[in-house]
């Protein structure tokens, strides 16, 4: 129970920190938010837009800082993120809904594949210490993890799209295919997603392999593994039901914690491939100085990561009695 309270406190504080950061940052601009934004947008936008920006950032001249903060928090909690400046007069939430399915589909699937494949390779590598999976792959992935995600994407484009011409270079689908629920459209989308998905898997799989391998090595030294061996159980059974089952717990937590990093890396991959997901929109927002969209995207990604961590937390508490007792 104490554990639950501590975790809840953590989630609430994190959410509050992200929201407050969004509130404070525009106010740190030289000359305060109104002056800074008016200068930046001078002559480019209508008074109505400024009004909407005031909603998104909580800037109201007739209120003091605390009132502004409260009404801003109210807007955020109600899900009122104001109007996007880059896609004026669309609402921020509408713009995000355009991008979200693309990112969820691409990054979600690619991350899942990387996690499953990496964990499996890690299990097998630790099981056969000194084998090919154990001695060759970890150093390779230590080196590849040092390359920027987006650069690996550039190289994939150069090799597979430009030189070989196997896959399209950019975008989520071809412009000549209409968006409808037909086989042509779906296969076209899949066709476009292969290269970015491959990039994300390639760059994120190393972490799973290393973590799982190291956990497995620690677990394999436990007495109950020796016991299982002494009982003459089949190696497969020991590997998966005795060792991997216990070693996978930290990987689950790691999965949630590093989701933030995966999303971060995937944002850049999206940008490289011009994929119509959150990353590309985030870059657009930065280029257009579309602060309301930018901040909402930051908030959305934070909330997504928090949710993932929460799920992993409760999963661990459910799977591992020790965490519950420790409290």
């Amino acid at each position, binding site marked *: 129970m104490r554990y639950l309270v501590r975790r809840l*406190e*953590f989630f609430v*504080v*994190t959410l509050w*920190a992200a929201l407050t950061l*969004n509130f404070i*940052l*525009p106010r740190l*601009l030289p000359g305060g938010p109104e002056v800074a934004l008016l200068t930046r947008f001078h002559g480019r936008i209508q008074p109505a837009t400024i009004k909407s920006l005031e909603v998104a950032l909580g800037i109201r001249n007739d209120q003091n800082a605390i009132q502004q903060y409260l009404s801003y928090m109210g807007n955020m909690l109600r899900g009122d993120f104001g109007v996007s400046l880059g896609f004026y007069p669309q609402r921020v939430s509408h713009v995000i809904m355009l991008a979200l399915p693309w990112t969820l589909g691409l990054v979600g699937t690619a991350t899942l594949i990387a996690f499953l494949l990496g964990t499996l390779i890690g299990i097998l590598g630790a099981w056969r*210490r*000194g*084998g090919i999976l154990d*001695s060759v792959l970890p*150093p390779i992935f*230590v*080196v590849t*993890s*040092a*390359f*920027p995600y*987006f*650069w690996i994407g*550039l*190289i994939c*484009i*150069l090799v597979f799209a*430009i030189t070989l011409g196997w896959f399209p270079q950019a975008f989520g689908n071809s412009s000549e295919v209409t968006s409808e629920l037909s086989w042509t459209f779906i296969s076209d989308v899949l066709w476009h997603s292969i290269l970015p998905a491959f990039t994300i898997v390639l760059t994120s799989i190393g*972490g799973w392999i*290393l*973590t799982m391998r*190291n*956990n497995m*090595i*620690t677990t394999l*030294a436990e007495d109950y593994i020796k016991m299982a061996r002494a009982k003459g159980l089949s190696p497969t059974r020991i590997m998966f039901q005795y060792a991997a089952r216990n070693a996978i717990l*930290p990987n689950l*937590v*790691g999965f949630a*914690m*590093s989701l*933030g*990093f995966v*999303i*971060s890396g995937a*944002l*850049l991959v999206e940008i*490289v491939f011009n994929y119509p997901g959150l990353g590309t929109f*985030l*870059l657009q927002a*930065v*280029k257009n100085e579309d*602060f309301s969209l*930018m*901040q909402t995207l*930051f908030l959305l*990604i*934070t909330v997504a*990561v*928090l949710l993932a*961590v929460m799920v992993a937390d409760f999963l661990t508490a459910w799977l591992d009695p020790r965490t519950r007792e420790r409290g």
Partner: protein
Amino acid sequence: MGLDVRLVADQSAIQAEAARPEAGGLHIVGRALLGNRKALAGVIILGIFLVLAIIPGMLAPYDPHAQIFAQTLGPSREHLLGTTGNGQDIFSQLIWGTRESLAIAIIAGLLATGISLLIGVSSAYLGGLSDHVLSLVTDVFLVIPTLPLMIVLAAYARNGGLAVLISVIVVTGWSYGARQLRSQALSLRNREFLDAARVRGERSGYVIVFEILPTMTSLIVANFLGVALYAVLAAAGLQFIGLGNPSDMSWGTMLFWAQNNGALNAGSPLWAIVPGLCIGLLGAAFALLNYAFDEITNPALRPVRRRR
């Protein structure tokens, strides 16, 4: 990621070093580094880049900014890596770019490690409410997605130059280390040599700096390497999307210009390939050193010869 593995590694390190706390100094770290092949490779790569960063003027054939050559030339004897779409020599840019990329890695690494150390160790040493609050802050920074946060920060502080870039990386990069250092300091807290220091009547400042820190040397170094790797990649990412100062000469800004000029399609792919390779090599040097450190501090992870 790999936090729990690290904790296991920390514990064996603590046991090894607690036995002889006075010997846990840098020379042990140094000797272990040279005996490890991965570490040696890391040291050599780092050394080469260090030389490039210190004397680029003596090694680069041309002025990296000068747009005086024919555009998108292929590699030749005059231009080892060809020229950019703006008629600059890619090889010279690469050499001059080393300085900023390496400087960001080292400065951000040092600053972030300093903050991790300050927060992690004082959190563990003070205990109670301060520990609770500091741990909570650490966890919050640990979970907030770094790249979106960096982008938001850098977008507001646009054109702030190198200082902004480094601050953004430090702000988003210190939390992981703080957590690790806290857990190691925590397990040190009730050791006898610390009790002895307290009984002698030493002040907490003295105990932290002269008693606790020396026993944590290897973890601190490993931490620095981790942040340096993170800084290399983060700086490259931010500069690539145009949030650095585009007129600076660094590998990240080279990638920015290459991408903006469509280098891949315009027949100068080397413009986009080589800066990424250098970023990767520098990052790999830090990663290899870090990996070797893991092996040194946790003997269980060392490579084994196959036996049946």
